[in-house]
């Protein structure tokens, strides 16, 4: 766990599995065989099941305490919402890939509305290649008067 005292990146290393990708695909209502069947994925020219566009988000939370980094910085997680999310892709990833997700949290900022905002940036690498960059912004509304 990365406390305020040690502001280095929080690093997660994950091997992508077919089972996890199928569970994710099913939970988002995906029915295209390309995302469910290795044979169909290969027929479409992929080396294995593709990782869908938003799947990387959850991988960055695979720590003992997924939102611990936000709570440590003083966000009341009981009221905090996901404000924004972005992904930039430079390569697709597939089942069987081992990915390293390195996340760095920015400072807590306060919007004019009084809402408190916290941004966390994650770089996703496969071996030495950066395959994606993510940015997550949490919003904690101003406390009720």
């Amino acid at each position: 766990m990365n406390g305020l005292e040690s502001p280095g990146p929080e690093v997660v290393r994950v091997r992508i599995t077919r089972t996890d990708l199928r569970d994710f695909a099913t939970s988002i209502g995906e029915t295209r065989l390309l995302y469910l069947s290795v044979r169909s994925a290969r027929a479409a020219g992929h080396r294995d099941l593709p990782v869908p566009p938003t799947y990387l988000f959850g991988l960055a939370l695979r720590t003992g305490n997924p939102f611990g980094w936000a709570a440590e910085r003083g966000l009341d997680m009981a009221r905090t919402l996901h404000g924004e999310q972005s992904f930039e892709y430079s390569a697709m990833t597939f089942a069987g890939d081992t990915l390293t997700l390195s996340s760095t949290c920015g400072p807590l900022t306060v919007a004019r509305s009084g809402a408190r905002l916290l941004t966390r940036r994650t770089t996703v690498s496969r071996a030495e290649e950066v395959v994606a960059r993510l940015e997550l912004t949490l919003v904690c509304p101003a406390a009720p008067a």
Partner: protein
Amino acid sequence: MRAQAPEVTPALLSAFAAASGDANPMHLDPEVARAAGHDDVIAHGMLTMAWLGRLLTEHSPQARLQSFRVRFTAPTPLGAAPSLSARVVDPATRGPVRLLLTAELADGTVTAVGEATICP
């Protein structure tokens, strides 16, 4: 392009929480959600974004997707079945294709707005 999301149910949210790794209790525990001022649990923003991602990869092969961003503008309550849309901006211009994305509830509440760029 348009698509209709399935109805949001507690079972759907718990399946998505397990599969996505986002187990924030706001999406799973009605007491936590009520304490935060909601009527009941609300859907994960990332579930809406995953649905929008499906729409994008139906529009173009995923390998062409360069960027994808969404701002969550309102909660998605239980029982909602958001309408999803992706619309090409400036179809005549060259270069990457920009798509504007929205998710909207039946009463017109916009729950997410976003943008994606796709290699031509």
